[in-house]
């Protein structure tokens, strides 16, 4: 049964991108284990506001694990200790009475801190703008099954498309590499007929943008795959390498 617990939350506070940050520890009483992690953060902020202090800034939006806005490095894991979920889907029943929970922002040169736990992830948008799209004349709605797609391709593409672009892969990577994200975005389009037109251009453009933005070189540790809330496989990274090398050899 869920009960109420008393916890300490050790949160990273940082006034701005240039400011020097530090940890602050806050005590929270009678937190229901049935509440979500972000609800706990809301309660913390309510408490801070009532005390006349600045609330903790953190990213969140849909709170159902599909938008990719929430982040947070909780007790040494992106999206917390539970597996295959985002921070907003994490529940307080994963923690015990008396725990001190350490909450940090994503830390990677590619994701500079804006304030407190909020980081700037526009680098991902720039990578998508470089080639993570298809240019097609949409016209009317096509008939169902008008374009034949093999089952394995549909499955793989769907698995890749599950990536919500939260940045947990970069946050956990010892090399600050964005390869899992980029590979998922390249993979989902490379597998489908709709993505063929820009296939060659896409792999080159997205990898070039990723390098330009200062993300690291993937060394295949596989940590990203383990921490990914959407279970994106590193076999997509192999596909990206393949796509990129084929495109370059064709030049």
């Amino acid at each position, binding site marked *: 049964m869920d009960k109420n617990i008393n916890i300490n939350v050790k949160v990273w506070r940082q006034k701005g991108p240039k400011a020097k940050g530090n*940890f602050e520890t806050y005590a929270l009483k009678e937190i229901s284990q049935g509440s979500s992690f972000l609800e706990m953060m809301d309660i913390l902020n309510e408490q801070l506001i009532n005390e006349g202090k600045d609330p903790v800034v953190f990213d969140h939006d849909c709170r159902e694990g599909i938008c990719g806005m929430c982040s947070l490095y909780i007790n040494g894991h992106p999206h917390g200790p539970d597996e295959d979920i985002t921070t907003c889907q994490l529940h307080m029943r994963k923690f015990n009475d008396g725990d001190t929970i*350490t909450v*940090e922002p994503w830390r990677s040169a590619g994701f500079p801190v804006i304030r407190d736990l909020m980081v700037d992830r526009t680098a991902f948008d720039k990578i998508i703008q470089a080639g993570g799209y298809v240019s097609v004349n949409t016209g009317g709605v096509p008939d169902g099954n008008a374009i034949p797609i093999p089952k394995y391709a549909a499955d793989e593409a769907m698995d890749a498309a599950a990536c919500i672009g939260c940045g947990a892969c970069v946050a956990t990577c010892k090399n600050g*590499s964005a390869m899992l994200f980029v590979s998922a975005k390249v993979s989902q389009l490379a597998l489908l007929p709709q993505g063929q037109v820009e296939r060659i251009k896409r792999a080159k453009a997205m*990898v070039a943008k990723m390098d330009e933005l200062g993300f690291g070189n993937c060394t295949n540790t596989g940590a990203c795959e383990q921490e990914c809330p959407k279970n994106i496989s590193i076999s997509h990274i192999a596909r990206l*390498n393949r796509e990129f090398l084929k495109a370059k050899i064709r030049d």
Partner: protein
Amino acid sequence: MSWLLKSSIGRKLIMSISGLFLVLFLMFHSLMNFVVILSADAYNTIASLLGANWYALIATGILALGFIVHIIYASILTLQNQKARGSNKYAVSQPQKNVSWASKNMFVLGTIILGFLVLHLIHFWSKMQLVELMHGHNYAAAGYHDPTDGAYFIRELFTQPLYSIIYIVWLVALWYHLTHGFWSAMQTLGWSNQIWLPVYYLLGFGA
């Protein structure tokens, strides 16, 4: 071809190809050394076949180049990755399940291997190919043992228990390096998917 040096995947391709080349050499080297267990004479025949002959010298040159490229790029990639990671470290960081220690410490393992490699060159190369190169067949006059008598050098070294232990440590480090290195090289070549990945893991361990 400048993309090889400019793009992250290009640089990794260099690591991958040079690494696989070194793996090939390692297989040849270990196969050759295995002969000494069967017959010292046969081993010495191979040693004299190689020696300081022109083809052996060219191969040694290419091999050295392979090592140098692999080491230089390992250093470049490691430095770039540290920069990409940033100077802010996590206060709490926990290891992930199913992520091997070797995969996160390839540079450390590589440095250990390089250190022992220098020792290995002093033990064997400097007494064999180098002596032959410098003194030709007049090695005896210069006060050296027959450089093609490889079996003698092996016997000399491994009768000292200390060196036997050092060499075992070295091989373990090398083995760990390869458990990650081999499948990682295949992954970088893009020659991997969910079917082949476990096979590469296994081959890496087997090697």
